[in-house]
C-alpha cells in the first residue's frame, strides 16, 4: 500500500472513531444526567486523537529511518515498505481507537487530553518553523565551507575583482575565476543607500502628514492607496526601473551632458526606494500614532505650532522606533533581488558613481545559479558563500532593529 491511501484510510478510521466515540458518550451521558462537564463531541475528539497520534508518530519515525532500512537489502526493504509498515500503522491506529473507546466513561478527563493535544500541535508548528531556519543556515554553512576549500577567505573578503567564470577546458584563456566579493557588497551598499535616501524622507514625511495634518477622512482614503504600493510585485517594479526610470535618467543625463548608462545604480536605487516607501511610512505611522496625545496637547498648550511640535516633541519621542523601522527597511533593501536583476545588471564594477552600472550580491547569486550548473564548482558554491554573508548581515540588522524597537516600546507602557 502506498502512502496516500494509507493516510486516507487513517483519516477515515479516525472520522469513524470520532463519530462512534461521540455516540457512545451520548448514550452514557443520557444515563448519568449529573455529568455534563464534557460534551459528547469532545469524547469523539478524544477517540480521534488516540487513533491519529500514535500512527503519525510511527510515520515520522519511518521517514527518519528509511535510509537505515534500505541497507537491509532492496527485496526485504520493499516488502517492509509495502506490507509490514502499512499494516503495523493501521493496527496501531485501530488499537488506539479500540482502547480509547473502551475507556469512555463520564469521569474520564477528556478535556485535559484535548488540551495536551492542542498544546502539542502548537509546539510542533513553532518548532518546525524554527527548525526550517536552522536547516537553511546549515545547508548554507556546509556549501560555504566547501567553497572556502577552493577559494581562500582572504580572496573572497578582500578581493577587488569578481569574475566567477571558471575554465571549461584546461587550455581556455583568461577564465581562471576571481572571487573578490567587495565589488558586490559595495554595489549592494550603493543601491541600498540610494534607496534609503529616497524612501526615508518620503516615507517619514508622508507618515507625519498622515498622522499630524491629514483629516480623518483623507487618511482613510489615502492610506490604503499608499499601501497598494506595497502590494505591487517586485518584478513589476523591476521592469518599471529598467524600461521607464532607467531610460528616463539616461535621456535626462544626455540632455545635460552627463554620461548615464541605462542600467545605472541610480535607477535601480530610486525604484527600490519607491518600493520601500510604504514599508517605512506604515511602520512610522504606527510609531508616531503611539506617541501619547498628551504630549501634543502639552506642546500646543505652550504655544508651539504644528511643525514645531512635530520637530521638537513627536519625532524625538518616536525616534528610536523610527530608527528600528529604517533598519528593517535596510535589510529589506539589501535582500531585494528582482529590481536590481532587471535594472542594475551584472557588471561587477567597483565604483561609488551612481550613474554607472553596478551589481549586487543578490543579482550575482541569481546569475551563479541560473541555468545548468555543476554543484561542486567554485562558481556555484560561491552563491552559497554570498548568501550566507548576506544572511548574517540582514539577520544582525533585524536583531538590532528589534532590540531598538522593543526598548522604545517600554517607554510608554
Amino acid at each position, binding site marked *: 500500500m502506498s502512502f496516500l491511501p494509507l493516510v486516507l484510510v487513517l483519516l477515515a478510521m479516525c472520522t469513524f472513531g470520532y463519530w462512534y466515540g461521540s455516540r457512545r458518550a451520548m448514550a452514557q451521558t443520557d444515563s448519568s444526567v449529573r455529568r455534563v462537564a464534557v460534551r459528547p463531541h469532545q469524547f469523539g475528539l478524544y477517540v480521534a486523537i488516540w487513533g491519529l497520534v500514535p500512527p503519525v508518530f510511527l510515520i515520522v519515525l519511518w521517514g527518519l529511518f528509511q535510509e537505515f532500512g534500505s541497507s537491509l537489502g532492496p527485496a526485504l526493504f520493499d516488502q517492509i515498505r509495502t506490507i509490514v509498515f502499512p499494516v503495523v500503522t493501521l493496527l496501531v491506529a485501530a488499537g488506539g481507537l479500540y482502547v480509547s473507546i473502551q475507556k469512555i466513561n463520564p469521569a474520564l478527563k477528556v478535556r485535559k487530553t484535548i488540551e495536551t493535544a492542542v498544546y502539542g500541535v502548537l509546539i510542533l508548528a513553532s518548532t518546525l518553523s524554527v527548525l526550517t531556519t536552522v536547516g537553511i543556515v546549515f545547508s548554507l554553512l556546509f556549501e560555504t565551507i566547501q567553497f572556502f576549500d577552493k577559494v581562500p577567505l582572504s580572496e573572497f573578503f578582500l578581493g577587488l575583482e569578481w569574475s566567477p567564470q571558471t575554465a571549461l577546458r584546461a587550455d581556455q584563456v583568461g577564465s581562471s575565476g576571481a572571487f573578490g566579493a567587495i565589488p558586490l557588497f559595495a554595489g549592494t551598499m550603493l543601491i541600498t543607500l540610494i534607496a534609503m535616501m529616497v524612501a526615508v524622507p518620503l516615507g517619514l514625511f508622508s507618515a507625519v502628514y498622515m498622522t499630524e495634518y491629514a483629516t480623518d477622512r483623507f487618511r482613510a482614503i489615502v492610506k490604503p492607496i499608499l499601501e497598494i504600493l506595497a502590494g505591487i510585485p517586485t518584478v513589476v517594479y523591476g521592469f518599471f526601473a529598467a524600461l521607464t526610470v532607467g531610460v528616463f535618467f539616461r535621456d535626462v543625463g544626455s540632455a545635460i551632458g552627463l554620461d548615464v548608462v541605462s542600467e545605472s545604480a541610480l535607477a535601480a536605487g530610486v525604484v527600490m526606494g519607491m518600493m520601500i516607501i510604504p514599508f517605512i511610512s506604515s511602520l512610522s505611522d504606527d510609531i508616531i500614532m503611539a506617541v501619547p496625545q*498628551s504630549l501634543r*496637547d502639552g506642546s500646543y498648550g*505652550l504655544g*508651539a505650532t504644528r511643525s514645531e511640535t512635530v520637530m*521638537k516633541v513627536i519625532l524625538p519621542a518616536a525616534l528610536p522606533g523610527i530608527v528600528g523601522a529604517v533598519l528593517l527597511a535596510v535589510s529589506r533593501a539589501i535582500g531585494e533581488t528582482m529590481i536590481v536583476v532587471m535594472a542594475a545588471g551584472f557588471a561587477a564594477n567597483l565604483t561609488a558613481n551612481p550613474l554607472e552600472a553596478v551589481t549586487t550580491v543578490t543579482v550575482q547569486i541569481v546569475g551563479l545559479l541560473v541555468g545548468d550548473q555543476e554543484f561542486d564548482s567554485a562558481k556555484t558554491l560561491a552563491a552559497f558563500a554570498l548568501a550566507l554573508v548576506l544572511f548574517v548581515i540582514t539577520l544582525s540588522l533585524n536583531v538590532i532593529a528589534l532590540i531598538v524597537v522593543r526598548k522604545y516600546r517600554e517607554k510608554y507602557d
Partner: protein
Amino acid sequence: MQMLADVTTPEIEDVEAIISAKDVSVFYGDKQALNNVNLDIPANQITSLIGPSGCGKSTFLRCLNRMNDTVFGCRVEGNITLDGQDIYAPEVDEVLLRARVGMVFQKPNPFPKSIYDNVAYGPRIHGLTRDKDELDEVVLTSLEKAGLLKEVKDRLNATGTGLSGGQQQRLCIARALAVQPDIILMDEPCSALDPIATARIEELIEELRENYTIIIVTHSMQQAARISQKTAFFHMGEIVEVGDTEQLFTNPRDDRTQGYITGRFG
C-alpha cells in the same frame, strides 16, 4: 450678562474681568457640548469650574486658549474677549494666544526630555531669551516659582518623566510659567495625584494667584471650596450658577447646584 448681573456678589464686581465669555456655544460635529455660556473671569483670582462629567467645563476651558482648534470638527460660536480683545478674531494668532494663556493638563505630561529642556521648551520656541545665561535664569526662576527647584536643582539634566507624579505636575506648571503667561488654565491638575502631592499643588496654586489669573476645572468640591474665590457650576452644557465660592457652597440659589454639592447626583 443679564444672568451674571443677578448672581455675582459685590465682592467680585470690584475686580476687573480679564476674560469675558458671551453666549459661547461649542459643537463637536453635530453634537452640542456647550450652550450659550456666559462667564466673566476676574483677574488675579482663582476661578473654579465644577460639574458632573461631560457637563462641558473642560470644553469651556479649552475654548479660552483655543485648544479646541486642534480638535477636528469642533466649532465655537459666541464671543470670548481677553483684555477686551476678541480671541477668535481672524487677526489673532492662536499660537501667541496660547503663550499668554498657559495650560496644565489632567495627567502630568512632561516631554521625554531633560527637566531643563522641558522648562526651556517654551522660551526656546518663542525666542524669549537672548542667550544661554538668560535661558538658565528663566528655567531656574520658573522651577523656583513652581516649588520644584529645591528637589531637582542637582539633576536638571535628568529626564522629566523620571520624576514622581506630583513632581511631574509641578514640572508642567514650571513649563507653563516659563512662557510668562498672564492666565493659567488647569484641567483637573490633581486628579492623577495622591493627597499629599495634591496638597502641594493646591498650595502652589494659591501662591501663584498673586501674579496670575487661574482657572481650574476640578471634580473635587472640597478643592474648589478650599482654593477658589469664584465658582461656576456647569450642568448639561450650561452654566447653572456662578458666584462667590463661599456663597455657592453654603447657600446655593439653584436646586441643581444644591443637589450636586450635597452629592445627590453627579
